[in-house]
């Protein structure tokens, strides 16, 4: 081995400090938080950094509101929630999921906006037999061959919403369509869904780099060159804001009609403003749906947070109530996992979208609505229901799921 350079006169203090800090960190990491058995521990993996942090915050706010409505107890047990940031990265989400399972000993995992993060995080949950309830992502693989008794979706399967849009486009007589979306699991599902139901000709199908690419100049140029009857896009979060802005900047707004899924919602509307008017979207929940649970949710959310809730919030609100229905059914005995699963399968709680039921792959069978952006009485932008597009819609992957109950 080579000799090493003589260190400059490092003081003993520096050396001791270095050693001590490392030892201290190791000790801190080793001291396990005592897993309180007498509480419902929920791990909430979402995005709290970067441009899509607004989604995570909306979901967290709604979740907290739901817990407030439940008196912060489920089945008599206090509820503890641990929020973790996935930074939109699959491997980070997976690591956080593992930590929640191994170190924090959570009873339920939820959150997961992004399908790729969810796909990477599923195995640890299934291996450890921890319930994972997706509050948003609905990848086709989990609706099909990867379906699991430990997984529930509160939201939808990714193809369903664009499928509804495709139906609507047929009704409107659109003949040629250009598809544009981000190149990750959900983006692919979205465009695949639109293709599945749209009856006309697809004149363009482009995928952009996710989540880095926020500059759509190359793709907008192609749209202009293809001259389709309509364009369908899927761009959640900040990308949705950027896309609408650039669509207008490129002079396409008003020239080629734009249809969307998950691109215009309560988190992006405040930034998109007038750009969103006249751009319809499809959704499984709109904030003016006329059921009691929804009216209470929207009113209390607006009172507490001074904004309209997005569908991400509505989903998180539903998750809390779904979990509650399970815990109540077993009277707080969280070891009775099979009984909790049976309770969740019944979807016996007041969902803000109205009543729905579960398919055998634990994905909802529900209605989809057409929504559009308007200004409310106070000049704020919001969404309103235009029509119901489909009812009792089930995803097209359930046959590949081998679960039966």
């Amino acid at each position: 081995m080579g000799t090493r350079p003589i260190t400059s006169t490092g003081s003993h203090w520096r050396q001791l400090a270095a050693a001590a800090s490392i030892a201290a960190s190791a000790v801190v990491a080793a001291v396990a938080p005592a897993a309180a058995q007498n509480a419902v521990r929920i791990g909430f993996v979402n995005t709290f950094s970067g441009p899509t942090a607004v989604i995570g915050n909306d979901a967290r706010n709604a979740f907290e509101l739901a817990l407030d409505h439940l008196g912060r107890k489920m089945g008599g047990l206090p509820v503890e929630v641990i929020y973790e940031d996935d930074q939109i990265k699959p491997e980070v989400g997976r690591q956080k999921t593992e930590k929640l399972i191994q170190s924090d000993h959570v009873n339920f995992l939820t959150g997961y906006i992004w399908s790729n993060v969810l796909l990477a995080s599923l195995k640890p949950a299934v291996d450890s037999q921890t319930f994972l309830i997706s509050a948003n992502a609905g990848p086709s693989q989990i609706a099909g061959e990867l379906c699991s008794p430990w997984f529930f979706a509160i939201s939808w399967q990714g193809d369903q919403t664009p499928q509804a849009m495709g139906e609507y486009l047929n009704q409107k007589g659109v003949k040629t369509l250009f598809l544009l979306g981000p190149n990750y699991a959900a983006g692919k599902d979205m465009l695949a869904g639109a293709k599945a139901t749209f009856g006309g000709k697809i004149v363009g199908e482009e995928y952009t780099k996710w989540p880095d690419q926020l500059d759509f100049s190359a793709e907008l140029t192609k749209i202009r060159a293809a001259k389709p009857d309509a364009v369908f896009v899927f761009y959640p979060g900040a990308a949705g804001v950027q896309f609408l802005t650039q669509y207008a900047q490129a002079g396409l707004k008003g020239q080629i009609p734009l249809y969307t899924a998950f691109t215009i919602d309560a988190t992006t509307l405040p930034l998109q403003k007038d750009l969103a008017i006249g751009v319809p979207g499809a959704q499984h929940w709109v904030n003016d749906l006329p059921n009691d649970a929804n009216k209470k949710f929207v009113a209390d959310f607006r009172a507490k947070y001074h904004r309209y809730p997005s569908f991400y919030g509505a989903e998180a609100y539903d998750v809390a109530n779904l979990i509650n229905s399970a815990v109540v059914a077993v009277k707080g005995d969280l070891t009775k996992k099979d009984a909790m699963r049976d309770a969740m399968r019944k979807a016996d709680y007041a969902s803000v979208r109205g009543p729905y039921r579960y398919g055998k792959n634990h994905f909802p069978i529900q209605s989809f609505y057409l929504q559009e952006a308007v200004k409310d009485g106070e000049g704020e932008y919001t969404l309103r229901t235009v029509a119901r597009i489909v009812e009792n819609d089930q995803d097209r992957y359930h046959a590949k799921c081998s679960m039966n109950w």
Partner: protein
Amino acid sequence: MLLLIEQGLNGVQLGLLLFLVAAGLTLIFGIMDVVNLAHGSFYMMGAYFAATATAWTGSLLAGLAFGLIATLALGVAIETVALRRLYGRDHLDHVLGTFGLILFFNELVRLVWGPAGLSLTLPAWLSQSVEIMDGINYPAYRLAIVAVSLAVVAFLYVLVMHTRLGMLIRAGASNREMIGALGINITLLFTLVFGLGAALAGLAGLMQAPILTVQIGMGENILILAFVVIVIGGIGSIRGAFIAALFVGLVDTAGRAFLPDLLRLLLSPKAASSAGPALSSMLIYLLMASVLVVRPEGLFPAARK
């Protein structure tokens, strides 16, 4: 044809932006012989300063001016406090030390501005399209970026070729020791050069801010591209950085625009869309590797060692 022109413009615009970042990097490297990984952080800080100032004052121009000046000041501060201790050391020390600065800046931004990022909205007169040729509508803002970048290029040209400071910069890039031996105030020169480099990177960042969002870590991708540009162009050479930056900008845009279509002849649209950007990114690195094989010092190396 129209498509080609539009994509060409997009490529030039990207190239010019890359040049702004690369110019600073190549100056710092060429004159101070410092590998500054934290250069991307100035890009990010420029955007953050400008977005914040625009939100305070309500005026885009005031915001941009403030962003520029603040980044210049930050560059000078960092040079004085931290970076000058790295002069004369091994490149590995630079790499590690400035890597630490990246971490520091990212966390500082998170602490001060929060994790969510900022946005910079454009005033109406910049948010529209301009018809530059028959049938080609190009966003006004992107034209503005091209115009500003070209103005900076002209400014740099005049600075480097026709002023005393520029002469010192050129001399320093080709032979550092000689400059010191001639009795020039090296410390001041280095600080000025570093500040200039930081300001250029900050300018690039704040110009990009309305198109992309302002977020933590936004400088890292452009940093790598900038390094590729200066290696291809030749370290220490601004002219080399300019040519290489335009080249890289055009290749990257063309790759993103046309490769997926070409690949679609062989693969499915999804696979083509994954492989397309991947291949075009790889193309840039292959370009760099091939240039290094033929001309190991880059296309226009400044230093005659």
